[in-house]
């Protein structure tokens, strides 16, 4: 049983000590679940932030809570730590500290497993934290791109540097590289906190309004903060039309001093009062306690899902936050309460409300009458009368559906269903409203994309080859085409207006769509059937999407991984055990396979693998890494393909790429061994200047 947890895996770069762990093949689904998990915006008072700064050296409550995002129910951070420690040192879990610890028994039973290996991934609840809604609204325009490929590239390069400094050519790299790729993938699909008008994944579900009861903040402060939140739409000039605070659940977070029973009681009293008078629930967090100081200090992971900007900022000045295990557990307890008792019920209530008021009427209205509807939309020049009323122009003259429009509500219903793991409902809803969006490519594209994703995530228990061919792949292609059309449209209109914004805005979503699809294809069990689709998408990314050079190489390597995974299920058992084991864990090292000559000899396995293809794309990656002077990556790639090309003199001649790369690498090693790291960095610097 692996020690590695989901969060541990995603943060492997920061502590590359796990070498030989396996990860499940459906890792992509977990990452996606995380990427679209409900967003909780954190509003805090300056006093509270200052208090936290003094106590923990962290700028704000938000910065603190960030570390508790991701899979809140599994407590990877504490579990991991407990595994790492000898049993007698194990702290008492702070079970007495909160008194509200229903998860305590869960905690114990769960220690044996972890997030990576749960059979049903919907059992894990993921959440993301973000800044206060006000901050969100003020930063960024609705057409901001999902990610900026320059930033992505910068991030990647930073990571590569980090890896290079922490490893050698001989490091067992398989898992590390995979983790790097998945990290890269997670950033590419969810790297912004900007609010999109077209989808609701980044729209906060809960607004956490925090008070410091220790400093005496009380009912009045709470009331003011709440009304400030509720009136945001009227007080903020640029409050987007597609957003409404009514769909966001406000919750008070009362931070108190746990050593004082008195304060605990008064906080509880405050909570009751807030509920009674403002109809808002509160949760109590024992944020301070004397014993925290003496307790075991546990270092916390960086949150997996975080915006690129934050990531880059973090990379520049890495902070390693250590908190007492007791506090961590207490925080998890509180968050678990928040999620299970407040947030999820809230979402479910909303979903069933929208379902009754919007979805059912929509269904009955157009049920079985698509032709009629199409006719309607065509005659109305793309927008029918009913839709017209839902549309509002913003001040730049762009049309948006408003928050209360049935289209957007349904979209939200689908998105929230996705968040809750109700993929079937999500699928049917996406499918339904995609017809409504026919005249609105930007809405349509996203809708089609998520329609396909919901199927692959689990709307269908079994994904057959036929479904891939006739349903899912066409959906993805249509989504990509629609995104593309949007980009063309945008650049042509912008060409007139002279704006500098162009293609990439929408293109970054297109890239995400391709990424999502390819990774989900790879998570299917019949990789023989699904890898070609994944490959096709990855190749499209390479061919059409704008990415930095290192990012592109990541894709090339992923293509290689795909080929490596392409093993006909009928011969799985025939492929040497090492390879089979690796294929289970979706490996990318093909060393073991190549060296086993039997595989080639066996007439039965002939043509049922793509190992040579895989090796070839690894080689291509190696050459490109060399161009980028990423010598560690070059070395690892060459190590991967060593076996595949061993003893085949067609490819081992002196004047061919492989030999040349090896030479170059050997030279580089001697060079860096002997002297001057500076010199090479100077080279890089001058090159940067020239560029």
């Amino acid at each position, binding site marked *: 049983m692996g020690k590695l947890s989901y969060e541990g895996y995603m943060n492997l770069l920061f502590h590359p000590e796990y070498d030989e762990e396996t990860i499940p093949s459906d890792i992509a689904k977990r990452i996606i679940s995380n990427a679209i998990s409900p967003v909780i915006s954190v509003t805090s008072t300056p006093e509270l932030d200052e208090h936290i700064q003094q106590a923990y050296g962290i700028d704000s409550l938000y910065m603190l809570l960030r570390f508790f995002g991701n899979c809140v129910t599994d407590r990877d951070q504490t579990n991991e730590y407990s595994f790492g420690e000898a049993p007698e040192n194990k702290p008492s879990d702070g079970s007495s500290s909160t008194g509200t610890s229903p998860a305590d028994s869960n905690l114990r039973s769960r220690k044996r497993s972890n997030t990576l290996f749960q059979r049903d991934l919907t059992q894990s609840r993921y959440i993301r934290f973000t800044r206060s809604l006000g901050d969100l609204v003020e930063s960024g325009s609705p057409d901001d791109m999902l990610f900026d490929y320059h930033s992505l590239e910068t991030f990647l390069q930073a990571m590569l540097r980090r890896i290079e400094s922490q490893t050698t050519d001989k490091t067992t790299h398989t898992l590390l590289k995979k983790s790097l790729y998945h990290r890269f993938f997670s950033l590419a699909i969810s790297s912004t906190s900007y609010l999109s008008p077209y989808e609701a994944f980044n729209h906060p579900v809960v607004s956490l309004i925090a008070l410091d009861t220790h400093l005496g903040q009380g009912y009045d402060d709470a009331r003011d903060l709440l009304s400030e939140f509720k009136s945001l739409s009227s007080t903020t000039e640029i409050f987007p039309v597609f957003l409404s605070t009514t769909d966001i659940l406000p919750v008070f977070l009362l931070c108190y001093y746990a050593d004082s029973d008195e304060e605990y009681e008064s906080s509880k009293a405050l909570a009751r009062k807030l509920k009674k008078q403002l109809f808002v629930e509160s949760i109590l967090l024992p944020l301070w306690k004397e014993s925290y100081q003496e307790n075991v200090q546990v270092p916390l992971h960086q949150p997996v899902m975080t915006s690129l900007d934050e990531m880059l900022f973090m990379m520049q000045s890495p902070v390693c936050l250590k908190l007492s295990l007791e506090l961590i557990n207490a925080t998890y307890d509180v968050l678990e309460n928040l999620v299970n008792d407040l947030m999820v019920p809230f979402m479910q209530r909303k979903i069933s409300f929208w379902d009754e008021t919007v979805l059912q009427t929509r269904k009955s209205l157009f049920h079985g009458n698509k032709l009629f509807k199409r006719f309607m939309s065509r005659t109305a020049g793309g927008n029918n009368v009913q839709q017209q009323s839902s549309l509002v122009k913003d001040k730049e003259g762009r049309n948006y559906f408003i928050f209360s429009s049935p289209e957007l509500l349904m979209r939200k219903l689908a998105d929230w269903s996705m968040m809750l793991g109700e993929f079937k409902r999500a699928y049917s809803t996406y499918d339904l409203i995609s017809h409504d969006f026919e005249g609105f490519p930007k809405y349509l594209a996203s809708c089609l994309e998520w329609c396909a994703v919901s199927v692959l995530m689990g709307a269908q228990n079994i994904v057959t080859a036929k479904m891939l061919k006739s349903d899912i792949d066409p959906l993805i292609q249509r989504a990509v085409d629609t995104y593309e059309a949007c980009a063309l449209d945008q650049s042509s209109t912008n060409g007139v207006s002279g704006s500098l914004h162009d293609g990439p805005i929408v293109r970054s979503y297109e890239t995400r769509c391709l990424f999502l699809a390819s990774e989900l294809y790879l998570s299917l069990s019949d990789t023989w059937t699904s890898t070609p689709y994944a490959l096709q998408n990855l190749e499209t990314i390479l061919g059409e999407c704008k990415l930095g050079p290192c990012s592109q190489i990541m894709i090339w390597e992923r293509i290689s991984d795909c*080929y490596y995974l392409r093993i006909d299920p*009928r011969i799985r058992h*025939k492929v040497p055990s090492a390879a089979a084991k690796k294929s289970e864990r979706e490996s990318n090292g093909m060393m073991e396979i190549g060296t086993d000559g039997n595989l*080639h000899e066996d*007439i*039965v396995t*002939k*043509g*049922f*693998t*793509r*190992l*040579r*293809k895989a*090796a*070839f*794309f690894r*080689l*291509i990656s190696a050459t490109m890494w060399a161009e980028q002077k990423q010598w560690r990556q070059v070395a690892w790639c060459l190590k991967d393909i060593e076996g595949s*090309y061993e003893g*085949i*003199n*067609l*490819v081992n*001649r002196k*004047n*061919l*790429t*492989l030999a*040349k790369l090896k030479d170059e690498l050997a030279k580089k090693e001697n060079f860096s061994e002997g002297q001057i790291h500076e010199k090479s960095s100077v080279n890089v610097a001058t090159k940067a200047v020239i560029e």
Partner: protein
Amino acid sequence: MPQYFAILGKSDNPVYEAEFTTQQGQQGQLQKGFPQHLKELNPFIMHASLDIIEDLQWKLNSNVQHGTNNSGFGSFLRSKNVNVTDNCYLGKVDHFYGLAITAYLTFSGMKFVMIHGNLDKNSTQVDDNAVKSFYQEVHELYIKTLMNPFYKINDPITSAAFDTRVRSLARKYLNK
């Protein structure tokens, strides 16, 4: 357009290799071979396409009912994927960024593979008839080589005559 042609043996060993270039034509066009980086990469591209070639070569034959339950030859029977008239020519089997890869199989498992370079970016089409004829004639040459008692199957073909003839076939069919 240049081509890189190779005959590969049973363990992917090169039995014969050649690069064909456009001849100096009347318009005075220069000999145009593969760019250096492709020269260095071609064998790898070819090696990679062997996966596909083998896939095409061996296909599960759904028609074969008898023997499917026999474990004697593995869990299922495999059969060669050929149609009657063009037993050996597989056509275009693979592509890689503007390169097309065609293949031809002999029954004793020798693989004739060719990378066609510099095709139109958008269409990596090859003239199947010409390429097929080329392969067939090379096959005949190969058999003649095989008939040489001093030639052992799977050994590299060193005969200069073979090389010359293959090159002239290439001129005849590929780089007219």
